């Protein structure tokens, strides 16, 4: 069940250049949230901007949730200007979380840039449910943009770093780095990041026979499955056919269900 609540900002810190973590006091949302779900934040009163901003839940605590964001436009600039102690209207939790395997299974999480946002919560859930810390590929443009390495390591995750410019870890893209970890048919891979990265991760997983899930991002007005604005083209039928709502049927999809070629024409 989703709630709309005024939530106090408990902490709000820069974690990398132009990247912030915000912890929100949101007991009702925290108690129901699962890893991979998201919230819609009302970044300012009034009508500019008009729409809420969808944000992945990073981690779920007893009476709070954290979000990670990158300052990219008007909404996130306004968000960045909010002080600790101020109040933000939050709607959530929304969407479906990551599917969690019932038994102990090798899991690899692949996060690119700010796409790492939902992965710490997922790692925590996997540790709690399967007793096994997932391996993590953390990718970013440069060393300065690598997020959450410390948090994930503290959870016991073996973290492999990859940077586009080679300033830290593997010099190259996340999919190449994933390939070196040799996923197989008994591996489940979770990815979140730029579309091009998730598509490449999907390709690696198809070749390896691994299961693969991706958490998608889309322009979104309502978050409640109503506006039909956030659809992604899929290979299988969902409630509204092969145009699935990222907010309702997603944001996490089996990557074999995503019609990746539809992104070519955008």
């Amino acid at each position, binding site marked *: *069940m*989703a*709630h*709309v609540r005024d939530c106090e900002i408990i902490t709000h810190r820069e974690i990398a250049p132009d990247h912030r973590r915000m912890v929100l006091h949101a007991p009702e949302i925290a108690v129901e949230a699962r890893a991979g779900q998201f919230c819609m934040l*009302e970044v300012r009163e009034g*009508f*500019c*901007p*008009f*729409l*809420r901003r969808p944000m992945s839940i990073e981690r779920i605590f007893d009476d709070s949730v954290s979000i990670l964001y990158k300052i990219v436009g008007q909404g996130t600039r306004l968000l960045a200007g909010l002080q600790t102690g101020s109040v933000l209207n939050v*709607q959530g939790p929304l969407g479906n979380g990551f599917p969690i395997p019932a038994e102990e299974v090798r899991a690899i999480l692949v996060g690119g840039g700010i796409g790492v946002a939902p992965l710490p919560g997922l790692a925590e859930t996997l540790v709690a449910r399967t007793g096994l810390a997932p391996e993590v590929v953390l990718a970013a443009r440069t060393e300065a943009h690598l997020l959450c390495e410390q948090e994930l390591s503290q959870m016991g995750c073996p973290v492999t770093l990859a940077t586009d410019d080679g300033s830290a870890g593997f010099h190259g893209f996340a999919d190449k780095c994933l390939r070196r970890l040799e996923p197989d048919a008994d591996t489940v891979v979770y990815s979140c990041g730029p579309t091009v990265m998730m598509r490449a991760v999907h390709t690696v997983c198809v070749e390896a026979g691994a299961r693969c899930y991706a958490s998608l991002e*889309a*322009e*979104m*007005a*309502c*978050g*409640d*499955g*109503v*506006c*039909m*604005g*956030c*659809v*992604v*083209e899929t290979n299988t039928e969902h*409630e*509204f*056919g*092969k*145009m699935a709502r990222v907010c309702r049927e997603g944001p996490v999809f089996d990557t074999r269900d995503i019609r990746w070629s*539809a992104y070519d*024409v*955008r």
Partner: protein
Amino acid sequence: MTSVNLQVNVGGLLMKNPVTVASGTFGYGAEYADYFDVSQLGAVTVKSLSLEPRAGNPPPRIVETPAGMLNAIGLQNVGLDTYLKEKLPYLREQKCVIIANIYGNGPDEYAVLARRLEDAGGADAIEMNLSCPNVHDPQNACGGGLVAQHPDQVARYTEAVKQATRLPVFVKLSPNVTDIVAPARAAEEAGADAVALINTLIGMAIDPETQRPLLSNIVGGLSGPAIRPVAVKMVWDAARALRIPVLGMGGIACTEDAIQFLLAGARAVAVGCASFRRPDAAINIVRGMEAYCRKHKIDDINTLVGAVKV
């Protein structure tokens, strides 16, 4: 003052208060059940129904704009059969008053939709969507533009539906016209029980970096508070010219907005994309209307309709 009468009669449809939602901004009702008791609205207007399911336009489908948004969804919906089987039971269980918005390819399909909805008990009123800017069906081409831009076609479509059903028939009109009175009058003369206005204003947004349109459909419909003054003025124009009631909509986000529409002549109002921002926007307006009436010592909300002092 003991109580305030909020009940209104919109062309034969009794609503316990003058607030419904705009088609396409409230799904089929159940989507908002987490936030409030949707049966407390005067009516629930469902997403446009077509005979067959529609896939809609490719993404991207929405763009945020100043105080509003552009959309080019393209009427993606589950189709009539799935609505009757899977969506209607919830609305009936909750005892919602239902306005079924319909979209057909040509007047005959509109008539079939209306007849089948009446036969199945799927609606308490029919709202004919003659004004969606995001679909392009050959039967509705009418020599260019939207059906609602051609008064003679508005009459033809309205007559077809009126002959098919005894339910109250509302005709939803487009603001993309020179004079809203012409299509509104055509609807009235063809037997419409009310007119609903306004649908979205056709707009466009371009990404200066890629130099391409931000919507895959190139153009879309503008909604939100940005269009409200246009809507109030068109309601005022139509209400003065017609005998049938006007269901007013366009950028309503709060009680004061809704009161403006009543004063301009709307018998009832629909809350649109404000629900995206605040899912409880519509029910808050119902509560706000009662408070407004008490403050202004009004015992019947109907006395506000068209009461603007000019």
